[in-house]
């Protein structure tokens, strides 16, 4: 009996806005608890929600990128439940009419493009965060009301690799559109993973287990693998009735999933439309404006790099991996660097350096303009390729302009004819025996002379020029 895994994902991502989704307090991370809060976030009596247009706009951008249908009327619902992190006793979310439904995108997994269908995208508010101590807990309302976009896929993903590829792709789209910084390190992304197993060829989905609040993509991968293993063992042992619809959580320390509670069918969230937020018509003109703001997305860019600039699939893939890399590359082209050359430098020297020092390209001292200042003298033959590489590191070490460093380290090639002729004359004078040997037919002595010149000039002589002059002088 061959088993097949079926995965559905819910990805929550904090959106980038100036203020929170329903209040005027700042949407920014702050270490000091309860420092970015307003009466609205803490649900003081009489407070009312104030919808943030920017958050709606960012949500619409994402809905567009995922090819969702966008409703004509914007509606928000209340999800009613009591929990200490929920100040109002309800969360404002979208149930009646989410901001995007029935979306579809393709994601690269290895060499294949796989389709993923989106059930819905909805905009909601984040809750406060709780810190539990031995015999008390603390509540920090800084996060309460931060705009949160939840993207829910259909159960249409069939491997942990595809799940992670999809999440990475989404994170990339968030960054490309600027809808979110999508920084997992800052806890801006949280995933719920639904995993079930079914018999190969069957059309009935198996019992779904939900793993909640997984906070990194590698943990998503691990949690899926763990669930596949756990559920497979149970099925193989004839104990499939022990796979029940339930909510589990990923436990970092043991690298396992742990049962939280039996499933939600028993929880009724009593959704109803929030009467404090009027139904708002989404105007077509506004949608057009938003659409115009969406930049070319990663897969499109990749295709254009391959088609237009003849980049290899690999190089194009590395460059589009982040919007910052891709923007860097495009800036290089704008100031006149050859696309292939730019791609080579980015994928080898630059990526190598960034990875080694754990840097981001947008905080990189070597801007496209400085790269240009290294490549230009190289291409004009003023410095050798070896020198260009040296110069690359010097620029980063000294944080100085390439132009200045070429002078400072005396890197410019010696290609003045008179100077070179003088040096060569001197060397031939001092090596009369070798000159005779050469003239007698021992032509490999030519390289010896070139070597002598290079030694004399400490490698700075322009080798092409040196050869030219030598040939003339040795006739």
């Amino acid at each position, binding site marked *: 009996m061959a088993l097949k895994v079926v995965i559905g994902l819910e990805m929550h991502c904090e959106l980038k806005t100036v203020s929170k989704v329903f209040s005027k307090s700042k949407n920014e991370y702050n270490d000091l608890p309860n420092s970015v809060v307003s009466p609205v976030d803490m649900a003081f009596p*009489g*407070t009312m929600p*104030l919808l943030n247009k920017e958050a709606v706009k960012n949500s619409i951008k994402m809905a567009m990128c995922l090819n969702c249908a966008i409703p004509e009327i914007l509606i928000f619902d209340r999800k009613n439940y*009591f929990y200490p992190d929920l100040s109002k006793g309800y969360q404002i979310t979208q149930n009646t009419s989410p901001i995007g439904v029935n979306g579809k995108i393709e994601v690269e997994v290895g060499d294949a493009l796989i389709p993923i269908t989106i059930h819905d995208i909805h905009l909601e508010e984040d809750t406060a965060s709780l810190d539990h101590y031995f015999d008390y*807990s603390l509540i920090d309302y800084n996060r309460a009301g931060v705009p949160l976009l939840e993207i829910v896929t259909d159960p249409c993903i069939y491997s942990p690799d595809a799940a992670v590829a999809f999440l990475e792709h989404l994170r990339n789209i968030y960054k490309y559109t600027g809808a979110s910084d999508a920084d997992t390190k800052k806890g801006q992304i949280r995933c719920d993973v639904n995993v079930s197993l079914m018999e190969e060829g069957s059309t009935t989905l198996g019992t779904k287990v939900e793993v909640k609040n997984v906070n990194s993509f590698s943990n998503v991968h691990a949690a899926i693998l763990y669930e596949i293993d756990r559920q497979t063992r149970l099925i193989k042992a004839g104990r499939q009735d022990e796979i029940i619809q339930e909510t589990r959580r990923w436990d970092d320390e043991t690298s396992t999933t742990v049962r939280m509670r039996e499933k939600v069918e028993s929880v009724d969230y009593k959704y109803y439309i929030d009467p404090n937020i009027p139904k708002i018509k989404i105007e077509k003109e506004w949608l057009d404006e938003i659409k115009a703001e969406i930049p070319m997305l990663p897969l499109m860019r990749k295709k254009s790099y391959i088609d237009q600039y003849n980049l290899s699939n690999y190089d194009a893939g590395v460059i589009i991996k982040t919007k910052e890399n891709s923007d860097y590359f495009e800036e290089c082209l704008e100031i006149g660097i050859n696309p292939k050359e730019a791609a080579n430098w980015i994928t080898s020297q630059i990526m190598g350096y960034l990875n080694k020092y754990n840097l981001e390209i947008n905080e990189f001292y070597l801007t496209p303009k400085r790269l240009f200042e290294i490549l230009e003298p190289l291409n004009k033959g003023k410095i050798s390729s070896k020198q260009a590489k040296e110069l690359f590191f010097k620029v980063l070490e000294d944080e100085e302009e390439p132009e200045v460093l070429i002078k400072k380290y005396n890197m410019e090639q010696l290609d003045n004819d008179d100077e070179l002729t003088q040096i060569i004359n001197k060397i031939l004078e001092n090596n009369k025996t070798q000159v005779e040997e050469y003239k007698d037919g021992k032509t490999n002595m030519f390289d010896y002379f070139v070597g002598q010149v290079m030694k004399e000039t400490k490698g700075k002589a322009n080798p092409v020029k040196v050869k030219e002059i030598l040939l003339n002088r040795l006739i």
Partner: protein
Amino acid sequence: MIDTLKTKLKTGDELINESIIKAKNSNLNAFVTIINDAKVEDKDLVLSGIPYVAKDNFSTKGILSTASSNSLKDYIPFFDATAIKKLKETGAVNIGKTVMDELGMGETGTTGHTGAVKNPWDNERITGGSSAGSCAAVAAGIVPFALGSDTGGSIRKPSSYCGVVGYKPTYGMISRYGLFALASSFDHVGVITTSVKDAALVVDTIKGIDENDMTSWDSSNINLTSSLTANIKTKKLFYIKEICENNYSDTLDETTKTLELFNETLNKVRTLGFTVDEISIDKTLLNAIYPAYFTIASAEATSNMANLTGMIFGPRGKGKTAEEMMFDHRTNGFSPLIKRKFIIGSYVLRAENIDRYLFNSAKVRKIITDKISDLFKTYDGMILPASLSPAPKADDKLPVYLKTEQYLAIANFGGFPSITIPSGFVNNMPVGINITGNIKDDENLLNIAYNIENILGYKNQTTKGGK
């Protein structure tokens, strides 16, 4: 009355002190808080030196705001409701917070955590609610105006019982920011005064779009005060036959008299040249108003008041875990009446019930709103008794009165502007009429009310004397 007071205002805090003393000496149990140190801040503004009181469900910075509930018995807000803020900015001086039915959920004025409010015309009788203390304070002449809130008649009913003017403008004309929510889609901020003119004057100063309330709208082209004296030409009003004919089961003598008085009032109104027509509406539909109102209001209230957990404000409950503390707070913070509404609210919101109860109630709401809106294409307003009797005695069979009068909620269903003005006496107790107009047609409504008030002759009436 405000005009008269303004000309009288010579020595700064004189009026304010007078009001504070009257409030302290009153025996109506109208106040949760009397603000002893209230003072005039600026003397050159529209309402400078005019004392007022606010229902205790308005957020008042630095002043206890309990909504007459144990769940908020120690809550001192740190921000002002928009209406309070605007009054402050125009110079009016808040001298007290008034008792109400707990959290606004009640029609009697007897369920506040500090006890029942007494009717100033007869202390044996109730004021009605939920804006009980606000109506009592104005009727007793303690202050010339009060802020109230109206979710299903909470301003307009007690105004009838107390013989004062109670006006709630079109939904969203006055910001609700800082008004403790009961049922957000029904809640209105409004005023209680002794004259239509004062009501217009106060609402003119507190209305307007507010960025903190998304349901508020720009009414800068509306000037209620100047609309009062506009030409009345031939206005057309209607009343609903089924509400005004005397065939209520358990009919009380006072109801009969109230309806007789209403008919006399209609005849007086006709002398203004107004047309007053009788309209018939299916009684089944009218009977659905109360359950539809009750269902929607309970559902919204349950959700709105889920913030009352004692975690952030209000007395902290006892318990080892947050859940236990919330449970304890909500067990001890509310009267059984409130808990009953929460249970009903939760019940009708459940996935398996929401269609049958909440959505059907929403349909009733829409059918009634559409019906009345349709009538407003022909008519300038709907005129009805503001109550079907004078204020009952505290020991009377209250539910009999109250259920039948839920037609005042029609104005909350549709967000229509609606005003109660006194129209006479039954057994020495005041009663009023209620006029409701079309959405955003407040100028027309107040123009009509002002002219009717003029011929009825109960302007500036308080228990201390009229005019």
